């Protein structure tokens, strides 16, 4: 019986965790290349979720297509925030100004969405949330299978892109040393744009998959993003492998805290871990093994 409960919570944790990984990877990518934080990332998640919702419920699109729509919306938001915030502020060389500006964008987007969509939660039903599989006492929906598979596929694609394509290598080169990469004929402006668009597309897409799991309100992204921040720090800022590991860890913490403690304690546990990490291992979970992994 307890084994079943544990197995069930592992399943729940992995489903949640893979969504958190998608959100957190976007933050980590931007940090790796730009050394900046996009606070509006959360609202890209939310707007992606709403885009998917309206694509399905107003236009009658399929759920899988709505994930693509959300991805597109995220990518467009990425273009916009790069043009409006990151590109003009990059030359001022301040570490904190872009962060503060994106806090402004986030506040603006969140409350604009509140005015447009209202505070009442939307019920995001997909045809896949009804179909339930039962395996050895545990159960999970087709929706969660889709979430995990799409997340794994996206992460694998991203990984392959970074490792094997020229663009991916150029991206890592810019992340390592922007000046030298520029001397090698790589246009950093173009690659920074690409990074922000990629990461925002990930956020939008994660929104479409999160919405059926969480409560869809204009603030849906905020609860996710604070965990995503915790994940990128626990995993080591800019470290992709660490982010994946930390994302799954936070998903598991969330499901086990809900089962054995109290759902109200989730954020306290996650951020307690974050603060402990910052004190004892500010470089993240797998910083030491990083060299082996390259």
């Amino acid at each position, binding site marked *: 019986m307890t084994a079943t409960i544990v197995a069930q919570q592992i399943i729940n944790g992995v489903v949640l965790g893979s969504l958190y990984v998608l959100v957190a990877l976007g933050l980590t990518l931007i940090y790796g290349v730009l050394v900046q*934080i996009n606070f509006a990332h959360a609202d890209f998640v939310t707007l992606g979720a709403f885009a998917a919702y309206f694509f399905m419920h107003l236009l009658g699109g399929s759920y899988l297509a709505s994930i693509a729509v959300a991805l597109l919306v995220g990518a467009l938001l990425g273009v916009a925030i790069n043009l409006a915030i990151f590109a003009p502020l990059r030359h001022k060389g301040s570490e904190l*100004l872009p962060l503060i*500006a994106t806090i402004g964008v986030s506040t603006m987007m969140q409350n604009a969405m509140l005015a447009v969509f209202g505070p009442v939660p939307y019920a995001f039903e997909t045809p896949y949330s009804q179909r339930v599989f039962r395996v050895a006492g545990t159960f999970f929906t087709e929706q969660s299978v889709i979430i995990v598979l799409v997340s794994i596929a996206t992460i694998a694609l991203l990984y392959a892109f970074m490792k094997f394509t020229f663009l991916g290598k150029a991206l890592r080169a810019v992340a390592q040393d922007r000046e030298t990469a520029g001397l090698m004929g790589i246009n950093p402006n173009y690659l920074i744009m690409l990074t922000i668009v990629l990461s925002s597309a990930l956020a939008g897409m994660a929104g479409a998959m999160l919405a059926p799991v969480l409560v869809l309100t204009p603030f849906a992204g905020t609860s996710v993003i604070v965990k995503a921040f915790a994940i990128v720090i626990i995993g080591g800022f800019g470290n992709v492998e660490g982010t994946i590991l930390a994302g799954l860890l936070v998903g598991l913490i969330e499901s086990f805290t809900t089962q054995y403690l109290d759902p109200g304690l989730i954020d306290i546990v996650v951020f307690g871990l974050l603060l402990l990490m910052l004190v004892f291992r*500010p470089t993240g979970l797998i910083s030491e093994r990083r060299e082996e992994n390259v």
Partner: protein
Amino acid sequence: MSDAVAVGPAYRSSRRRLAFLFAALVIAVLPLLLTSGYWRTNLTLCAINVLLAIGLDFILGYAGQLNLGQSAFYGLGAYVSTLLITKFGVHFWAAFAAGVAFAGLAGMILSLFAVRLRGHYLAIASLGFAVIVHQILLNWISLTQGPLGIYGIPPPPAIAIPGLPPIEFSNQVALFYLVSAFALLAYLLLDQLVRSPIGEALTAVREDEISAQSLGINANAWKVFAFGVGAAVGGAAGCFYATFVGTLVPDAFFITESFTILAMVIVGGMGTLIGPVFGAILLTLLPELLRDIGDLRLVVYGLALTLVVLFMPGGLVQGWELLRRKFAGARVAGGR
């Protein structure tokens, strides 16, 4: 500018004294001019927000530490003082002192992270701290009554001065005078601090920590100090907020409140004390003046924050300087 008059320190300090007198006069007159309960409420909110903004600015603008946890200190001050009053029957001013001290202590604890981290890491650590405090207020139901909130918080007890009628703080005007007098006092104190060698030490840490340390400035000690003072001022704002509104719910101290306070500091002009005062007043009143927009109050905050960072990172203070220089330039040109 060539038109700069030689300004001696004596002249500057007498001008400063005049400015304080003028500010005190404005505070004294305002509630007499604005007689509706609605505007008097806004005035008191302005005074509370001024406290929050100058507290954050001391940490952010002077010590250079991006603290996104000001909402936590605000909430701790409010809850600690209120719980002492309502649960333990502690006298208001003792509870006030305890709330301020507790918030200051929490700031010093958070600064222990600032000692090890900087920039983005500190921003997220302080945000995490604010999330934890909010969640504790929400979930420690036996103490805080969680989302149900605490109701019927009494105003500060009346002060009896012999020979005069007692000052009742259930009176809106009296409470406004109390809060704004405290805000003016806090401003005076911080103003003295930042213009003293302590302020120079803080700015040195902000500008270049390593150089500051090589000059014998203990950067970590100053960060602890800045966080302690800034958080205590935020805690004082919380105590006043609780007694002014009479109701406490944890969501008043959600992390978005930190962003609102940040907007006040940035819009006003971080790294100056006078800027955040006007930033706080502007951002408190602006949404009220634009009442038609209703729900869009926070959209205005976000927009103001973004536009200021993009186009005028020095905030209102920078705008004022630009205007003044333009005016002075025109005067010089006209006098030729």
